[in-house]
């Protein structure tokens, strides 16, 4: 299968190792990954901040970058960005009175999958240890990000994949379904409420005794990780794609730096 990677802006610029891990997993399964070079961002920050006029060219750029028929499906290691592509893009195009863009956005949205959706629903991966060779000998807890959970209805796809990794111990996170308080510019506009939500999330994570908290959205993990870092916690965060990419011979370190094996540098 030919799979177009939507890296997402935050992973592209801040967490390239997450996109590299995504590529590694898909190539390990024998698929061809392409990276449409026109891509930038889903526009969710603009939309969710109310800047619709400014969001329109960002959305139009994403649609233009991903509407080529040269790939089978698109994938992003983010529930939030995929939810934006699928649900927000057509709504924004309609609001801005661009019916043609709305139709094009719907077509792109229909072909776009969040990583665990693609792995489980399309590629039939249910056992990461067996099918991907995933191995990660650490105690991990897992935060299901809101948009993946409630907009995409991912259910336990990410968690089940993590549990099937060799050597891993997965600890249940108390009040897992509670938002970490990120919410994009909410974290700046309503910093006090956001911080209060984060404080509770961090406490729950630390109560599990896990050495790290995994999840499917780099933005939420940056938020949680940033809070844990500020309180000098020993716990850190790591995207589930990196855990799936980790093997016995090419392990990922818990600080998030990918050990790149052959095929990389």
């Amino acid at each position, binding site marked *: 299968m030919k799979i177009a990677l939507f890296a997402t802006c935050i992973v592209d610029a801040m967490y390239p190792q997450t996109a*590299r891990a995504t590529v590694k997993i898909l190539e390990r399964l024998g698929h061809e990954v392409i990276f449409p070079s026109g891509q930038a961002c889903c526009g969710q920050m603009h939309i969710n901040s*109310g800047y619709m*006029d400014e969001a329109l060219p960002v959305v139009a750029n994403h649609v233009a970058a991903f509407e080529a028929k040269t790939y089978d499906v698109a994938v992003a290691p983010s529930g939030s960005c995929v939810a934006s592509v699928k649900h927000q893009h057509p709504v924004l195009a309609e609001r801005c009175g661009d019916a043609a863009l709305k139709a094009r956005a719907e077509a792109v949205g229909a072909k776009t999958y969040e990583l665990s959706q693609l792995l489980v629903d399309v590629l039939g991966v249910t056992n990461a240890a067996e099918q991907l060779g995933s191995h990660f000998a650490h105690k991990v807890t897992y935060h299901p990000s*809101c948009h993946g959970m409630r907009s995409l209805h991912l259910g336990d796809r990410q968690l089940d994949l993590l549990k099937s990794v060799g050597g891993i111990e997965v600890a249940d996170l108390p009040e897992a379904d509670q938002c970490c308080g990120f919410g994009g510019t909410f974290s700046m506009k309503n910093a006090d409420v956001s911080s209060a939500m984060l404080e509770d999330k961090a406490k729950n994570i630390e109560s599990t005794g896990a050495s790290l908290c995994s999840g499917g959205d780099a933005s939420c993990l940056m938020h949680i990780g*940033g809070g844990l870092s500020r309180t000098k916690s020993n716990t850190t965060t790591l995207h589930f794609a990196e855990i799936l990419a980790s093997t016995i011979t090419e392990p990922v370190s818990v600080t998030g730096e990918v050990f790149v094996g052959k095929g990389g540098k």
Partner: protein
Amino acid sequence: MSNVFMGMPSLPVFGDGNLHIDEPFPAAAHRELGNTQMRANLRHATHTIRDKRLKVVGELPDWEELRDAGAATKNQVMANLPALLEEFEKNFTARGGIIHWARDADEANRIVSDLIKEQDTDEVVKVKSMATQEIGLNEYLEEQGISAFETDLAELIVQLGHDKPSHILVPAIHKNRTEVRDIFLAEMPNVDPNLTDEPRLLAMAAREHLRRKFLSAKVAVSGANFALADSGTLAVVESEGNGRMCLTLPETLITVMGIEKLLPGKEDLEVFMQLLPRSSTGERMNPYTSLWTGVTEGDGPQNVHLVMLDNGRTAALADKYGRTALNCIRCSACMNVCPVYERTGGHAYGSTYPGPIGAILTPLLTGIKSEENSSLPYASSLCGACYDACPVKINIPEILVHLRGEDVDSKRGENKLPSQMDLMMKGAQWAFSSGKNLGLLEKGLPLGKLAAGRDKKIKRLPGIAAGWTQSRDIPAPPAQSFRDWWKKDHRPAAATTEQEK
């Protein structure tokens, strides 16, 4: 209104009353977050009610279908509102009720006050009602020399404590029972000075206090949960029985109801009577449901009035992307599951309607430009828990985002310097609307790494970004973006075909 009637309907008017917040949400939230007792009370109460709701909702295999049915019925009502209102008026009037139409809070207050004065009394008993909270009826009546006694236990606590409700269903949710005991001891006439904080004793004290009022009051004021167009019937759903007392004992009953409360007919109650108690109190069925249709000679109130309140509802109905907010049945499930409400409490929202529904309904009723109401749609991380819990499937996150757009658009063209947020969004528009631009910007990543210093963390940022760094670090950026790595270093492991560069 002093406008001369010109034969054409005037533009919808926005609502007034207790809907305008005078302090931006972030400032009010900052203050409320510091109230640790309130936060502990609220955390306990919201978590208890969340669990109860999940349990009783889980019992119904057709819960999702019920939600769909509720949403469809309400959408149909809003689409046919003018015809349904006329049908209701005809039937209500035919059964001896008298309808009054109120464009805004002021009109509604004057109508109710005049009706009370006609009965030669200066005391009324009240059934818990959001519409009368919204229009500030108690305050208005007090100015007119009329005392309104709240008979719902929690409303009574709030009234005796000279406080404001912080929740639409559990107005005293921010108080624990010890605080309630203290209010009763200080404010309730003839209360037993040895009253403890045992809930049963507190309820008994309130009952004794209220019973005297029920038996003497000549006029009752209520709200309504539903109005059935095909029969002219009104309905109140409650837990304590105080409502039943008010609806049956006094000679005069004045109901104040928003025009959006209509349902086509009694068969629709089948759906809503399953949705509402489960979503609000987490009960399979509420203890008291009262339905009344006009006047019955020799039985119950002989003067039955209904004030139909617009107060911004027509304006909300005119908003294509926001109108489903009018589908709200005031169950409060959204605030019980909201992580923001759980921490700030209802007072931070400033309006009669707090929580997620308040953050959309308040600015829809008043217009986004009213005082500080434009800060309300931002009072959400957009986690979506409210949408999942809503029994009539109001897509609250989507309407929050829509209203943020209305806010930003309403400020465009103002002759002001662009805000930091404006500048950030403009800059990001440039970066995010082309892969080439983002690639160029990413060339600067090593600078960020340098700025992060030896511990690889950015701990302080200026301006609005300081909100982030007040409790969070940012990791040092990588030396190379993914885009750059892909271009220069990616060697496909499996496929050998030409890669897109």
